[in-house]
C-alpha cells in the first residue's frame, strides 16, 4: 500500500456523516410489485425499447437496445411482464420514458444472458471484453453514468492508455455505497480491475481509497494480497472533499492535471468507480448485465439508514419504507439524489432508481436545508481558497449575476466541476453552483444561437449570389436580344428590296406605334399602377446588390 505522492488544490475537510449503512451488511432491498426501468439512465441518447406490452421477460433479458454507439442497453431487473411504456419525472425536471415491468415475484434470471462466461482475462481478446461490457449496459456507477465501453474504446484508439484508476475515494458526506462495495466485494473489485486491464492493455492499476476509511483499506488490501497481482496497487489519498472528483484524484495520484478541454485519456489514464469494476466482473464471469446497484438510504429523516442492493427501476418510496420509513410524518420531505454537497432535488417519491443513483438523502428542512435569503457577497475569498479548480468563484458569481457571461467564460467557468465547495464556505450563503449552472446554460444557448446565425448568414450569402447570377444572366440575354433586333432593323433598312425584312420592319414599327398609343390611352390610375410596379421591380433588383 502506498500513500498518494501528490495533492490537489483547494478543497475542504467535511464532517464524515457516514455513521450509517456501513455498520450493517448490505442486504437486497425488497422486490417491488412494479419496476419503472428508465430508458435513459446514462450519458448519451436514450435506449430504444425492444419488447412489447404483455411480453414475459426474465431478469437479464434485453428490454431496450442502445440506439447509437454512445447509447447504452437496458435489461430487465427481475422476471415479470412488460406492462407499458410510461413517462416518469426523474431528477432536475427531466421526464424520461420508463418500461413498466410487473414482477412475477419469481425473480428468475436468464442463464448466460449475455453469452458464454469467461474466466481468464489474459486469454480473452480486448475487443471481446469491451463488447461484453457494452452488451451488459455498464455505465460509471459513481454518479456520472458515462458508458464504460465508450471510455475503453477511446482508449483502444490511443494505445497510450497505460494506467487505470479505480475510484474508491468516496468524499461526499452521507454516501457510503462505494464503501459497502469495498467492504463486501473487494475480491470482485480486484477481479473487475484485471478485466479492465485486459480490455485496455494498460499495465498499471491503482485503487484509491481515502485514508480515513480504514475498514475499506484493510478489506481491499487483503483481497489484493490474495490476488498477488503485481500490476495492482492500493493508494491512500487524503480525506478531503472533493478527493473523489476525477480530475482531483488524478492530480493526487500522478501530480498531473487533465488539460482544460481534454480527457484523462490524454494523460494515458482512465478512471472507473469501484462498483463499476464489480459490474464488469459480473458481466464477464457470470454473464449478468447491470440490473442492480448499491444505494445508500440515509439522512436524519430516515428511521434506519443503511445500504441496499437495489434493482434498477425500484421507486424510492419502496426504499424509504424498507428503511423503516420517516422519523416523523412529513407530507413533503426533502428528497435528494446524491450527497449533501452535490445532491439534486427529486420531485417526488415515485422516482425510480437508475444506474447513477448512488444515494437517497432524506432530511427535514432543519437538517438539509436551503439557505434562507442569501446576503450580499463580501468578497471574503474563502471560496477562492477551497476551489479545487483554482477558479475565482466570487468573480464568476459577480459576472453571472450581472449577466456578463462572456466575462465568466474568460475566467474559465468551463473548468468548474460544480463540487459546491465554494458555496458551502460562503458566509453569505449564496447558491453559487446555481449561478454557475445558469451561466453555463446561457453560454451554451449563446453558442447555439451563434451557430444558427452563422448558418443563416451563409444561407443568405448563397441566395444573394444566386440572385446576382440570375440577374446577370437575364441582363445578358436581354442584351443579346436587343443586339439581334438592332441587327434586324439595320439589315431591313439596308435592304428594302428584301420584302420579308421590310415587312418585318414595318410590322415592328406598327407594333411600336400601337404600343405607344395604347400607353397614352390608358387611364391615369392604371398608368400609376404600372409605374409603381416598375419602380418596385427596380427597387427589388436594386436590393439584390
Amino acid at each position, binding site marked *: 500500500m502506498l500513500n498518494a505522492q501528490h495533492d490537489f488544490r483547494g478543497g475542504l475537510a467535511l464532517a464524515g456523516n457516514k455513521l450509517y449503512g456501513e455498520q450493517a451488511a448490505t442486504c437486497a432491498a425488497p422486490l417491488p410489485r412494479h419496476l419503472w426501468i428508465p430508458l435513459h439512465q446514462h450519458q448519451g441518447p436514450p435506449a430504444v425499447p425492444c419488447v412489447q406490452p404483455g411480453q414475459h421477460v426474465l431478469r437479464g433479458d434485453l428490454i431496450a437496445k442502445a440506439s447509437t454507439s454512445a447509447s447504452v442497453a437496458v435489461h430487465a431487473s427481475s422476471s415479470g411482464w412488460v406492462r407499458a411504456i410510461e413517462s416518469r419525472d426523474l431528477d432536475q425536471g427531466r421526464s424520461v420514458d420508463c418500461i413498466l415491468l410487473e414482477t412475477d415475484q419469481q425473480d428468475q434470471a436468464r442463464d448466460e444472458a449475455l453469452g458464454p462466461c469467461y474466466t481468464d482475462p489474459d486469454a480473452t481478446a480486448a475487443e471481446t471484453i469491451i463488447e461484453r461490457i457494452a452488451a451488459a449496459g455498464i455505465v460509471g456507477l459513481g454518479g456520472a453514468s458515462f458508458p464504460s465501453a465508450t471510455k475503453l474504446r477511446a482508449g483502444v484508439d490511443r494505445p497510450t492508455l497505460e494506467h487505470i484508476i479505480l475510484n474508491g475515494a468516496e468524499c461526499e*458526506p452521507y454516501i457510503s455505497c462505494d464503501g459497502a462495495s469495498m467492504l463486501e466485494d473487494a475480491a470482485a473489485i480486484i477481479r473487475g480491475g484485471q478485466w479492465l486491464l485486459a480490455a485496455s492493455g494498460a499495465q498499471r492499476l491503482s485503487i484509491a481509497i481515502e485514508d480515513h476509511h480504514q475498514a475499506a483499506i484493510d478489506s481491499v488490501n487483503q483481497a489484493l494480497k490474495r490476488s498477488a497481482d503485481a500490476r495492482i496497487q492500493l493508494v491512500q489519498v487524503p480525506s478531503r472533499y472533493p478527493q473523489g472528483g476525477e*480530475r482531483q484524484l488524478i492530480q493526487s495520484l500522478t501530480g498531473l492535471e487533465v*488539460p482544460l478541454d481534454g480527457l484523462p485519456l490524454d494523460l494515458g489514464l482512465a478512471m472507473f468507480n469501484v462498483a463499476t469494476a464489480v459490474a464488469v466482473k459480473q458481466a464477464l464471469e457470470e454473464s449478468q448485465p447491470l440490473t442492480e446497484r448499491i444505494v445508500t438510504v440515509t439522512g436524519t429523516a430516515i428511521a434506519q439508514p443503511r445500504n441496499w442492493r437495489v434493482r434498477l427501476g425500484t421507486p424510492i418510496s419502496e426504499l424509504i419504507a424498507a428503511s423503516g420509513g420517516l422519523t416523523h410524518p412529513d407530507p413533503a420531505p426533502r428528497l435528494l439524489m446524491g450527497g449533501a454537497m452535490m445532491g439534486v*432535488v427529486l420531485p417526488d417519491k415515485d422516482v425510480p432508481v437508475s444506474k447513477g443513483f448512488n444515494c437517497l*438523502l432524506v432530511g427535514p428542512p432543519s437538517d438539509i436545508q436551503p439557505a434562507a435569503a442569501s446576503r450580499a457577497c463580501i*468578497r471574503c*475569498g474563502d471560496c477562492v481558497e477551497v476551489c479545487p479548480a483554482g477558479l*475565482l468563484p466570487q468573480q464568476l458569481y459577480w459576472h453571472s449575476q450581472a449577466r456578463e457571461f462572456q466575462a465568466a467564460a474568460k*475566467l474559465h467557468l468551463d473548468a468548474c466541476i460544480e463540487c459546491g465547495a465554494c458555496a*458551502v464556505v460562503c458566509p453569505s450563503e449564496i447558491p453559487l453552483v446555481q449561478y454557475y449552472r445558469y451561466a453555463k446554460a446561457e453560454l451554451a444557448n449563446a453558442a447555439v444561437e451563434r451557430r444558427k446565425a452563422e448558418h443563416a448568414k451563409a444561407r443568405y450569402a448563397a441566395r444573394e449570389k444566386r440572385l446576382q447570377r440570375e440577374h446577370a444572366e437575364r441582363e445578358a440575354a436581354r442584351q443579346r436580344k436587343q443586339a439581334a433586333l438592332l441587327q434586324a432593323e439595320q439589315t431591313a433598312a439596308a435592304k428594302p428590296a428584301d420584302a420579308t425584312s421590310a415587312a418585318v420592319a414595318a410590322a415592328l414599327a406598327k407594333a411600336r406605334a400601337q404600343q405607344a398609343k395604347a400607353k397614352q390611352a390608358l387611364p391615369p390610375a392604371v398608368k400609376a399602377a404600372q409605374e409603381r410596379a416598375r419602380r418596385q421591380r427596380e427597387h427589388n433588383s436594386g436590393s439584390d446588390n
Partner: protein
Amino acid sequence: MRIAGPWIRPRRRVPQVMLAVILALLPGVLVSVALQGPGILFQLVYCCIGALGAEAGILRLRGRDLSSQLGDYSALLTGVLLGLCLPPWLPWWQALLAGSLATAVGKQLFGGLGQNPFNPAMVGYVMVLVSLPASLALWPADTTTAWNLPWAYWLGLGELHEVDAWTGATPLDAMRNGLRAQLTVTEVTADLSTDFAWLLAVAWGLGGVWLWRRGLIQWRIPIAVLAGVALPALIAQAVDADRFASAGFHLLHGATIFGAIFIATDPVSASTTPRGRLIYGFGIGLLTWVIRSFGDYPDGFAFAVMLLNMLVPVIDAHTVPRVYGQEHRS
C-alpha cells in the same frame, strides 16, 4: 427556490464574521484605554451611533429591510474600526460625523454591503482628517494626562482647555517634525517619552493571530503590508540611518500593525486573488512608508489603503490564477 447543493449549513455566516473581528479587537481596545485613557471608549460609542444611524437612515430611504441589513454587524464593525483610528480627544460631534460619513458615503452611496470600492472606515477617517486637520492632533500628551480630562467633555458638555499643555505629538509627528528640524533619528527617539507602542502592537497582533487561526483572515494581506513598510525602511536605513526612521519604528508606530490586520484585510475593498492580495498589501505598506517619509501627513496609512482600493480592479485583472488543466504560462 434553491435547486442545487450544497445542502450543508456554512461554517459561519456574515454576522458571525463581523462579530469575530470585533471580538479580536478587544485586547487592543483594552490596551488603548490603559495607555490613552477612556477617550477611546467614547469615540467608539459615538462612531458606532453615527455609523449605524446613517446606515439605518439610508436603508430606510432605499426601502430596504432594516433588521436583516443592520443585523449583519458590518456597520457596527465600521464604527468600531473608525473609533480606534480617531484621536481620543476628538470632540464628540466630529466622531459622530465621521461615523455617519463612513457608512453613508463610504458604503451606502455605492449600494451597500459588498459594493463599496473603498474601505468605509477609511472614508470616514480621511473626510474628517482633510476637513478638520487640527482635530486629528488631539492625542493626549501622556498616560497621566489621558485620565485627567473632565468627564463632562466626553458628553459634549465641556470645553477642552489648555490643549497645548495636554495634547502631545504622536511619535510619528515627533519624528517628522524632528527630521524637518534637521535632528537625527537618534536624537528624535531619545526625546520621545516612555513608549509603550510595542504593547499595543502585541495586543493587535494577538487578535490578528486568533483571526488567522480561525480562518477569518488570510495571511497574505497583513504580511504583505508589513513587508511593504519594513523593506523600504530597511533599505533607507541602510542608506542614511540619520534621516530615515528604522523599520522597527515604522512597524510599531502609527497604524501599521492595526491597519495591516484590521483595515487592509477588509475583504470588500481589497483585492480578491491570491497573488493580487500580496501586491495589494505590499502596495499599501510601501505607500504608507513613502507618505510618512516624504509626505505632509505624519501617517499615510488611510491614504495608502484608499489609493490601493482604487487599483484593485487592475490588480485583480492581472493576477487571475492559473486554473486546473490550463497551460502554464511560459
